C-alpha cells in the first residue's frame, strides 16, 4: 500500500472526525466509509504496450439519520471543508425526506471477524515492479498469438488494485482492512473478417501466486475462441441445455438478484413470498459465504458494520434465506445476513454447490443438446424470472460435440430452470465471486431458423 504523506490524518481519524461532526450538526446517527485505492493497469496488443495507468484515489461516503429520515453523501474530494459542507447539507436534506420506521444503523455486533484470517491482502502485489507486470501481459498475448488459427487480438491486460477501507459508525463500530486484487487476461479473434469468432479468458485473484500462469490463460483463450469456428444456425427447438461454469455464473448472478431482501420488499422478484418453499429440485443448494479465506467475495464486515457470515440460501431445492442488509431485514422481519453493500445488498461468494458428475460425463450422457458457452445481451427479468439471451454454443450429439452454433437465442424461466436442473458438475471453482459448476437443464427453447 502506498503510504499517505506524513502529516495527513489517517483515514480512520478522518472517518471519526466526520462522524463526530455530523452528530454535532444534528444527526441522530452517522456512518462514514473511506476508501483509499491504488490502481495499476497495463494493456498490451500485438506485442506492444497500448496503455499504462497508474493512479491513487480516495473517496468518502456518508449516511446520516435524523428523526428516522435518511440522507447520503459522497465525495472524491477529501478536503475537510468539502466533507463538512456535505455533512451539513445531508442533515438538512434528511429533514426534507419522510420518516421511515425502519431507518437506522445496525447495532454494533458483539462478534468480530478477524480480517487477517480471511487472507484478503497479498503484500507481494505491492512489490511487483512495472517491468514484471508488463512482461506478464506481453507473455500471455504472445503465447496466444503463436497459434496460427488466431487472426487478431484484442490485447492482453494485467491489472492490480490495493485498497484500504475504513468504516466508522456513530454506534461505536470502527472497522478497517486492506485487500488486494490482481488479474491477467487476453481477448482473441479467429477466422476472416466476415466470419470472425471471438472469446477471451482471464484469471482474477487476491493473491499473485494463485493467478493462472500466462501460458495457461493463453491456452484457454485460444481453445475457447477456435472451437467456435465454422458455426451453423439451427432450427428452433426445445432441447437440454448444458451451462459451462462461466454460464452458470450469470445464472447464479440472476438468482442472486432474485433473492435480495430489497427485491423482495419491492416485489421486484418472482421469489417474493416463497421463503420456506421448494423453488428448485433437490440437486440445488446455493450458499453465500463471505468467510472463505482468500476468495474474491470474502469480507470481514459489510457496509452496515455487521460481520461476514455463511448463509445457506437454497438447501436441496428449498428457499431457506433471503440475503439482507440491516434495512431490508428489518422491513421483512428477518435477520441481516452481512450482505450490505453501498445502500443496497451485494453478494459475497455466492455459489451453487457442486454435484457428483464430472462435466465430461454430463456431456457424454447427453444424446442431443446445446452446450452454452457464451451469451450476448441482457434479457433477464427478475420480476418474472424470464430469461431470453443471445447465445453461442456447441451442438451435442450422442454424447460428443458435433459442431459450433451461433446466432441463436436461449429462453426459459429461472423458476423452471431450477426445477429442471438434472445434473450438477463437480467443477466448482471460484473464478469470480458469483459462480457455480457445470449444470444440465432438462429443457429450454433454443430459437434459430
Amino acid at each position, binding site marked *: 500500500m502506498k503510504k499517505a504523506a506524513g502529516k495527513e490524518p489517517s483515514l480512520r481519524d478522518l472517518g471519526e472526525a466526520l462522524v463526530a461532526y455530523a452528530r454535532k450538526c444534528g444527526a441522530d446517527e452517522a456512518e462514514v466509509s473511506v476508501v483509499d485505492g491504488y490502481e495499476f493497469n497495463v494493456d498490451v496488443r500485438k506485442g506492444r504496450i497500448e496503455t499504462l495507468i497508474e493512479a491513487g484515489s480516495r473517496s468518502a461516503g456518508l449516511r446520516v439519520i435524523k428523526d428516522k429520515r435518511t440522507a*447520503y453523501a459522497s465525495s*472524491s474530494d477529501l478536503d475537510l471543508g468539502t466533507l463538512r459542507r456535505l455533512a451539513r447539507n445531508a442533515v438538512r436534506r434528511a429533514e426534507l425526506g419522510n420518516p421511515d420506521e425502519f431507518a437506522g444503523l445496525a447495532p454494533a455486533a458483539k462478534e468480530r471477524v478477524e480480517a487477517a484470517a480471511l487472507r484478503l491482502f497479498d503484500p507481494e502485489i505491492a512489490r511487483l515492479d512495472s517491468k514484471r507486470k508488463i512482461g506478464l501481459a506481453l507473455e500471455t498475448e504472445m503465447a496466444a498469438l503463436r497459434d496460427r488459427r488466431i487472426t487478431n487480438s484484442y490485447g492482453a491486460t494485467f491489472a492490480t488494485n490495493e485498497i484500504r477501507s475504513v468504516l466508522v459508525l456513530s454506534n461505536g463500530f470502527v472497522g478497517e482492512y486492506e485487500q488486494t486484487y490482481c488479474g491477467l487476461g487476453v481477448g482473441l479473434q479467429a477466422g476472416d473478417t466476415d466470419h470472425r469468432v471471438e472469446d477471451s479468458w482471464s484469471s482474477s485473484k487476491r493473491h499473485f501466486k494463485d493467478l493462472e500462469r500466462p501460458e495457461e490463460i493463453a491456452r484457454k483463450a485460444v481453445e475457447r475462441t477456435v472451437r467456435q469456428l465454422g458455426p451453423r444456425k439451427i432450427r428452433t427447438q426445445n432441447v437440454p441445455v448444458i451451462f459451462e461454469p462461466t454460464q452458470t455464473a450469470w445464472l447464479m448472478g440472476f438468482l442472486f438478484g432474485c433473492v435480495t431482501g430489497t427485491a423482495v420488499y419491492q*416485489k421486484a422478484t418472482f421469489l417474493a413470498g416463497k421463503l420456506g418453499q421448494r423453488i428448485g429440485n433437490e440437486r440445488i443448494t446455493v450458499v453465500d459465504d463471505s468467510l472463505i479465506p482468500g476468495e474474491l467475495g470474502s469480507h470481514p464486515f459489510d457496509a452496515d458494520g455487521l460481520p461476514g457470515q455463511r448463509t445457506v440460501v437454497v438447501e436441496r431445492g428449498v428457499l431457506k434465506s433471503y440475503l439482507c442488509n440491516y434495512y431490508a431485514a428489518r422491513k421483512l422481519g428477518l435477520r441481516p445476513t452481512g450482505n450490505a453493500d453501498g445502500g443496497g445488498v451485494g453478494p459475497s461468494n455466492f455459489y451453487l454447490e457442486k454435484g457428483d458428475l464430472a462435466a465430461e460425463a454430463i456431456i457424454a450422457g447427453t444424446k442431443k443438446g446445446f452446450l452454452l458457452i457464451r451469451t450476448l445481451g441482457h434479457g433477464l427479468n427478475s420480476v418474472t424470472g424470464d430469461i431470453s439471451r443471445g447465445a453461442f454454443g456447441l451442438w451435442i450429439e450422442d454424447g460428443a460435440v458435433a459442431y459450433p452454433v451461433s446466432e441463436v437465442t436461449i429462453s426459459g424461466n429461472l423458476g423452471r430452470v431450477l426445477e429442471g436442473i438434472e445434473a450438477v458438475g463437480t467443477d466448482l471453482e471460484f473464478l469470480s465471486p458469483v459462480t457455480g459448476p457445470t449444470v444440465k437443464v432438462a429443457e429450454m427453447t433454443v430459437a434459430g431458423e
Partner: protein
Amino acid sequence: MNRNPLPYVDHFGLSPADLRAVLEAALSSGGEFAEVFCEHRSYDFINMEEDIIKETAEAVSLGLGVRVIRGDRTGFGYTNDLALDKVRKTALTAAAIARGRAVAPAVPSLRPRALRRSVYRAASPASAAGLGRKIGLVREAYAAARAYDPRIVKVKVHASDSLTTVCVANSEGLLARDVRPMVKLVCSAISEKDGKRESGYWGGGGRVGLEYFRDVLTPRRIGEEAAREALTLLGAADAPAGEMPIVLAPGHSGVLIHEAVGHLLEADFNRKRTSIFWNKMGKRVGSPLVTIYDDPTIPAFRGSYAIDDEGTPPRKTLLIEKGVVRGLLQDKLSARLMRGAELNGHGRRQDYSHWPIPRMANTFIAAGRDAPEDIVRSVNKGFYVASLSGGQVEDSGKFTFSVSLGFLIEDGKLGRPVKQATLIGTNIDILKRIDRVGGDLEFGLQTGTCSKDGQDVPVTDGCPTLRISAMTVGGTS
C-alpha cells in the same frame, strides 16, 4: 439565450500557466502529445418508494486525468488531489510511457477557446433548484403511477441531476471549458394479478432544466406510461420463437442502430481491424433505404455536448449513406493513427479517471418515405417491437436487443401483446433486410446509457418505423 444560466466556475485552482507547466512535465520523457482533463461534478439524487421519500443523496467528484501519447502508446494517470505538486507527479507517471528524451516542441501558451452556440437548454437549472421542488416532481410521478390502476402494487421513482464542469488543456495549445447540465426522472411500476407480476418503465430528461418537466414531458405522464406498460404486460403472451418478419416502432428501436452499426463504426475497432466494417469504407453493407448519422449537437439531448472530452467541437457525422459506409466516430488517438482522418468530436470518457475513446452521442437512422400504418399492414404474420430495454454487439457484427414489450402482427394488424424476448442477428445481414423505412423519425427515452470498455456515457438513439424481412426472435412459443 442572452443570459447564460450556467457560467463557468473554476473548481480546480490551476491557472493556464500551471496547466502549461504540467503539460511540459508530461512531455518530458519523449511524449508527442499530452493532455490534462480537469473535472468537477456535483450530483443530486432522490429515491421514492414505499410511498415515502426514502432517501436523498449528494455527491461531489473532483479530479484530473493526464494522458501522454507516443505513437500508439498511451500513458495515463489520475488524481483527486489537485495540489500542483500532486498534479505534476501524476503527469510524470503518465509521461513514463514514452521513456526517452523530450521530442515535442514547446507547449504554446494556453488561451481559452470561445464556445460556439450552446447545445444545453437549462433555463431553470436543476442544480440551482431547491430539493423541495425536485421532490415535488418525484411525488407527482409516483402518485400518477400509483393512482393509475389498483393492480399497480409497487412504484419506484428516481430523480437525479448533475452539473459537470470540465477544462481540457493539451500540448497543442488548446484550452477548452464546458459546463454540462443533466437531468433524469424515471419511474418503474410493478403490476400484480392472480399472483403474477410484471414491470413497466418510463422516464425522461436530458441536457435541460426543470422547465422540461412542465413543457416537454410531465412527471404525471412518466408515472402513467410506466404503469400502462406494467398493466399491458399482465395480459401478454409468451413471445414467439424462430425467424420471422419484424416491424420496429419508431423511437426506442434506435437501440438496433446503436448496436448493429454505431459501435462497429467507432474508429478504434476499425484501426485495430477487429470490427467487421474495417475493410468496408465506401462499400455497400445495407439496403439503399438506410442512412445513419450520429449528431452530438442536437439541442437538449442527453447525448449532446458543446465539446467532446478532448476539447473538440463535435459535428453531425454521416456514418452510412444509402447503405454505403461513409464515416467513423473519431477520437484524437485513432485519428492520429489513421493518417488523414478528420476529427468529428466523438472522443468521450466516463470521468476524469478514464481516458477518452470513440463513442456515440445521438445515433439515428434517417426518416424514409413509407407511412407507418402501411408498414404494419404489409406484414402477414410477424412481430412488432414496441419498446426495448437494451442490447449488445460484438465485433463480428453479431448483435442482440431485448424487447420489453411487443405485439404479434396478424393479417397486417397489431394483435396480442407479448412479453420480453431477445432478438439476435448479424449486422450485415440485417442491414440488407431493412426493406421499409417510415417517415416518422422519433427518438427513444432520454434516459439511456451506453457501456464500452467499462466506461458509461449518456446517449440517445432514434429511428422511424422500420421493417426487417426476417430476424430471429428468442421467445418460448
